[in-house]
Every structure is written in C-alpha cells, then in structure tokens.
C-alpha cells in the first residue's frame, strides 16, 4: 500500500519542511536559554553574528563546515545503499594515521601541492580499509553494520592512543601528538576568498583549501549516486535488496564497495583539522565530527547540496556557539551541545513530525499543487 500522504511540491519538501523543523528547534532552544536566565533573542543575534558577522567568523564557520561535508557525504553514500555507517568517527581517526605517515615522511621533501594528493590518497585508503572490515563482516557474516562500525570507533580510538603515545610521539615530548608538520604539509588558507567579498583582513582562521576538495567531493558523490552504474546499483540495493538480487547485483560486492567509498570520505575528513589547522595529528582530533555527519546527512536528505547547506548550518552552530558561550557565561559549552542536539532531534529524528500537517495544509489550500509537481513536469 502506498502511503496515504499527498506529495508536496519540491520546494516545500526540500525547503519549507527543513525550515519549519529548524525554526521549532530554535524555539525550543530559546526556551532552554530562557530557563538559564538569558535573553534568547540576544543569544540568537550573538550566535548568528558570531558565525557570519565578520570575516573571521565566516572563515571559522566554513572551516567547521568543511569537515562536516566530508562526514555527511560519507554517511549519505552508505545510506543510499541502505547501510548505516556510524563509524565515520573511527574511520576519520584512523585516517589520521595515514596522514601522519605521509606528512611526517614527506613534508621536508615535497611542496604542499604534491604532498596534498598523496595525503588525500592515504587518508582515503586508511578510512576505506577501516570501513572494509565491518563491511566484510556484514556481507559475509551478517554482523549488523551499525553495531560493528560503532565498535570499530572504540577500537580506532584505542589504536590511535597507542600509536600517538607509544609510537609516533617525538621522544621527550609531553603531548600525545606528532611533531608539527613542516611547510610542505600545511595547507594554504582560503581566507583571502572571504576578504574578496569586502570583509576586513582575517587575522587567523584555519579555513583552507580542503574546503574546495569537500565541494569537489560533493559533486563527485552526486555524480556517483545519480549518474553512474555503480550508483544505480547502490540505490537499487538500498531501496530493495531483493530487487538487487533479482537484477543480478552482487550483495557482497556492493556492500564492500559502498562502505569503502563511505570510509574513504570519512577518511578525507581528517585532512582539514590536521593539515589545515593544527599541523599535527593529535589525540581526539576528530572530536565528534564523524557523528555530526549523521545529523548533516539526515538534515541534507542525503543529497550533496543539502549536505553542504546542512554542514554550513552546523558550522554556524559550532562557531556561533563558541562566541555565544564567550559572550554569555551562563551559557556553557554544554548548552551549545544541547542546542545542536535539538537541531539534530527536530531536523533529523523528527523529520516527519510536521509533514502530515503541512501536507494537509497544502491539500486544503490548493489540491492541484500537491502531487502535481512531477506529473506536471511533462506538461
């Protein structure tokens, strides 16, 4: 039986509903702010201004967004194949190892533009291999990928602690991290790009060239999912494993390949904070970005354009949130996490909460507009 819901025009489906969800999330967040005795409107202004008000803020917002684009794409690719990869955190973390190996051994030899491609390949490879094990267990042994990928996050964390503390850390250093990368492994900044739009000189923001890589990857993911044979097979399996079997698509192959692509994207997420910002590989450098990717993919409807937009939104929450906790001491860092959580809750988990009401509204306003979006295309 088909769902008894009417179809909405595309602009409402992809624009209105996310906006309504977002608005509700912010209203509830506002109530929380009110509860701790601050003015929610002023908080909102600080948040938005902190994220977009100055060139510095924009640069930070886009810096955070860069990482989320990668992790969001990673989740989306797996999702199109019906797989829920929540191991992006671990895949990104392990990819840091690949980056460390490449950067530490080549940063004195190569310029950044030669080293960057090698580092991309290494990050992608390490991420892909880390995703390959749960994928193989799923395809061959039926171990559920949600369970295995989340477990692999912990294994990755332990491995990285061991590697950073006992193997890679320079002798005599106190911090569990690699030595600082030399110039060859430091990605050029893109702050000038923002300055072009008339913003004041940005003093120090880590917004860097990996943002361009993220956008290229978003385009490639779009191409992969909707324009290639592989993407077609992935979507077939994602919608209906039975139909995939019928169509002669190998279940094992499609799961392995998809998860490796997903893992590679998660791996590339590690480039931004390491080579772009800290210029080393440190303990916990991923700091939850892999999980944010899940929310980003949900909110962006697993479409690259939606993911880029949702990433910028979450970048704004990160950057604006930091400003907010600075300006309003009552609002701690944890409060920001609560606000982010609310956005995830309403935009992701409760995505369909307002849909029936909005659909009913549309149906009563103009029955013709509803569901004719596609049928009308040919006319």
């Amino acid at each position, binding site marked *: 039986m088909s769902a008894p819901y009417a179809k909405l025009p595309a602009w409402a489906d992809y624009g209105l509903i996310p906006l309504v969800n977002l608005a509700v999330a912010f209203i509830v967040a506002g109530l929380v702010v009110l509860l701790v005795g601050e003015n929610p409107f002023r908080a909102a202004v600080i948040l938005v201004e902190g994220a977009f008000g100055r060139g510095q803020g924009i640069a930070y917002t886009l810096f955070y967004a860069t990482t989320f684009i990668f992790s969001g794409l990673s989740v989306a690719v797996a999702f199109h194949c019906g797989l829920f990869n929540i191991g992006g955190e671990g895949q990104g973390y392990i990819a840091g190892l690949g980056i460390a190996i490449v950067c530490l051994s080549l940063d004195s030899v190569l310029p950044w533009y030669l080293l960057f491609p090698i580092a991309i390949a290494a990050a992608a490879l390490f991420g892909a291999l880390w995703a390959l094990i749960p994928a193989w267990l799923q395809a061959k042994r039926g171990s559920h990928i949600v369970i295995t990928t989340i477990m692999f996050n912990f294994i990755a964390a332990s491995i990285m602690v061991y590697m950073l503390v006992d193997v890679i850390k320079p002798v005599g250093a106190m911090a569990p991290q690699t030595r600082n990368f030399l110039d060859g492994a430091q990605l050029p900044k893109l702050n000038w790009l923002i300055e072009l739009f008339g913003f004041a000189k940005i003093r120090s923001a880590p917004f860097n060239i990996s943002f361009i890589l993220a956008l290229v990857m978003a385009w490639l993911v779009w191409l992969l999912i909707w324009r290639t044979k592989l993407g077609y097979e992935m979507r077939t399996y994602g*919608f209906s494993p039975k139909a995939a079997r019928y169509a002669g698509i190998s279940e094992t192959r499609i799961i392995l390949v998809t998860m490796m692509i997903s893992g590679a994207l998660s791996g590339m997420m590690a480039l931004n904070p390491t080579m772009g910002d800290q210029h080393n590989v440190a303990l916990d450098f991923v700091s939850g970005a892999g999980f944010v990717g899940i929310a980003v993919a949900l909110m962006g409807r697993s479409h690259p354009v939606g993911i880029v937009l949702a990433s910028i939104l979450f970048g704004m929450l990160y950057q604006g949130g930091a400003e907010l906790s600075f300006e309003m001491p009552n609002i701690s860092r944890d409060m920001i996490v609560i606000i982010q959580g609310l956005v995830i809750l309403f935009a992701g988990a409760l995505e369909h909460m307002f849909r029936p009401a909005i659909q009913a509204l549309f149906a009563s306003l103009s029955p013709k507009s509803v569901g004719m979006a*596609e*049928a009308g295309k040919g006319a």
Partner: protein
Amino acid sequence: MAEAAIELIGINKSFGPVHANRDINLEVARGTIHGIVGENGAGKSTLMSILYGFYQADSGEIKVNGKPASIKTSNDAIAAGIGMVHQHFMLVDNFTVLENVILGAESNALLNSSIAKARSELVRLEREYGLQVNPDALIEELPVGLQQRVEILKALYRGAEILILDEPTGVLTPAEADHLFRILKQLKEQGKTVVLITHKLREIMAITDTVSVMRQGTMVATRETAKTTVEELAELMVGRRVLLRVDKGEAKPGAVKLSVKNLVVRDSRGVTMVDDVSFEVRAGEIVGIAGVAGNGQSELLEAISGIRNAVSGSAMLDGKPIDLTGAADPGELRERGLAHVPEDRHHVGLVLAFEENENSILGYHDDPRYLKGPLLNIDAIVADAKDKIEKYDIRPSNPRLKTANFSGGNQQKIVLAREIEQDPGVLIVGQPTRGVDVGAIEFIHKRLIAMRDAGKAVLLVSVELDEIRSLSDRILVMFAGRIVGERGPEAGEGELGLLMAGVEQKEAAE
C-alpha cells in the same frame, strides 16, 4: 426491503490529485450479501478503509443501522459492529487460535478469565455458524482456509454484525472457497450483513444478493445480482466491452528450451519447499504451474531464475547446463536468454522509488546501450523507456515519473516490457496479473500468447486457475512442493482443484 445496515452518503476522499472516492453513495441492506467489484485502483479498498476507520473521508456521512456513526479508528468501527477480514491475515503465527481471537479484546491484565470466556464463546459461534476450528491449534499449523476462518471468528467474537471481506478467495483452493461461501450464507441466514470485495465476477454471481460496481473512484452502478450478467458487470467495471476469453491458436512445441531435473529447494528456515521437481518447457508452448499459494511455486521460480540457490538438482537452458545450486546468478541467466517476471513486482521486479526509466533497465543495466563509460547514458535510457511506454501503452506516458505513481497494471506492464523487449528465449512469469485491472489483464495475456507464437518457451506460475487454464498448453499442478499431476488445458476446474488440494496424492498413498 430490509433496513439498511450500512449507508454511505456522498463520501469523498482524495490523496493529493487522486480522487479515490467521488460522491459515493452506497446502501447495504441488513441480512444480505453485497458485492463490490471494480478494477484495481477503482477505490474499493479506500471505501472500505473509510468504513473501517483506517482513513477519514474528506466529506460525506456514514450511517450504521440508520444512525449516523463517526468512525475515526478501527475501534470505532468494531464498536459500531463492523468487522473486517483482510486480504492478508492479521494473525500472530505462533499464537493459538484462542490467543489470536482474544488479542486486543482481553478483558483484563490476567488472561485466564478472557481465555475461559473466549472458549465458551467459540463453542457457541461454532454451533451457530458451523465455524469449526480447534481453539488450541497454533495458527502456523493451520491451512490458509482455516486461518481465514479464525479471522472471521475474531470479527464475530468482537460482536460484528457487519462483516467486510477483502478479496477473501485469493489464497483459497476452489473447495476452500466453496466452504467459505457456505459459511457466508449461514452468516446471512443468522441476520448478519456481509460485504464482499472481489474482482472475481463469478464469485459475485455465485453468492451475492446485490452488487455495486466501482470505476475510477465513482460508484457506477448497483444491480440485483439475479438481474445482471458477468458480461454486463465486466463492461461496467472497465467502461468498454472486454474480451473475457483469450484467443489463441494451436501450440507448435519445438525443441526443449528449459529442463529441470530433480530440483530440491529449501526456504530460509530449512523447510523443503520444492521437492524433487522435474519438468521441461519447449519452444512455442506455455507451461502453466497451478497450485494454491505457498505450495512451492514461488521458491521454484526463484530457484530457476537464480535468485535462490537450490539444494540439489540439475537444469539445462538451451541444451547447456545451468548450475542452480550456486553458480548461476540472475544476471548470467539473463545474458543467456532467460527473462523473469517475478511474482512480487513491488519488492523484486521494480524499485518503486525509482523513476520509470530507471526501472526499465533493472537487471539490464550492464548493457552497453545504456552506458557511456562508467556513467549511465540517461538520454538513451529515457528514449528506450519512452519507446516501451508507447509499445505497451503504459500510462501515464512519462518515463521520468516515480514508479510508485503508476497503477498496478501499468507497473506490471513496465516489468513485462523490460523483460519481453530483451527478446529472451525463455520467459518465466509469476502471477502476471495479480492486482492488475481487467483491461491490462487482456493486454498481458495477449503478450504472453504472442511470445509463445514467436517460438519462445514460457513458464507461467499463477494461483488464478482461470488464468492457468486459458493460457497454458500444458498444466502442471503443484502441491506441497511436488508436481502431483500434468493435465491438458481442457482439464476441468474440479479435477484441477482436487489435485491442487492434494487429494489424489492422499488416495494414492492409501
């Protein structure tokens, strides 16, 4: 005339642009059996869902026993004395009959008193309506006919005075269907009202007192059954004259295209579903496999098409062996000229979320015609889909429309077009007209005959005995995983019905 048990006045219901029910008026007299016929998508199920509280009407009024009733949930419907027997049973397989009957109608937290009450009530119902069934039997151990009886008991236990049955005979053997009709007549004699939704016109003629015909969301006619004919009803349903018989000439069987020997297939639980089956299909003939649903036909199809691995047995395609126990995969078989129209087009044959053109290459997406390097050649795919849409009169004729937005008949045409247009040597077809409207059935049957006449081998599996009899050149009957008999197309319904019920086999064992 007796007082109306149900009265629907001016019912309207839209799903977006689809006006599923348009100003429906319906009156069902108490103590009668009222049939509702119509093609798929005519709005029968929507109407009954409104009556049973699954959907709310956009406008209109429902009266039960002359009193306006507000039915917002199925609980309201039950309270108003309406019971429904769904096409797909809503039973818990590993519960007993008794447990299923009280499910949702338990009187308090402890089950003992409910069970005792239900037991005596079941005895009463059995006495009054002849609905025998062992209250302590597990559902999964009961044949389908008895499971359906449990559904009826459930409704009666909840005090139903009005019983709605949605396509009740789809899963029954002819004999079981006859038994069901006897029960319905008994219910009627006891003053109950029965609403029977079906697309089988012969059943309407056999059992109903009055019949209403729906077409495209409207109620086009209501007739006294005694004063109408099958032909008139069919014409009312479709809106034009329909050929109910399939015209076909003599078969000219040629070389053996597909042969299967000693095939054994088990399902995922390890139960043997196909047990030592052997047969062959020749070029230029349609071999029909008759049987009640669940007797191994599905697994047989899946094994031959490479979807499910057989346990043992051998098979030849065009004189060359195919390994159905492992190596043969649907893609490879397709390349070797074996096309498959699966029984379940919603989950297997199509991806409903895909655009029509994407489905028109499913399984053939490796074909270089549809590719441009690693990329899909979308222009070519859409042009190809357009072509098939024209040839097979698929509506709406928009290859970029989501497949879920096509009607059942048109979805089936999408699958058929895809498989037939690849010009396969062997076509295996499962339930080609399940959930398909009368007009499309005619078209599909003609296509299958045309395949046969073009010298292709066609293997047809269907639970519709009429379909098997009118299309097949040879009929194999499957029961409990075995082929229990082979008959010609002239075999009578009664004879085939007995085979389908496994009667001959039991006699032979005695």
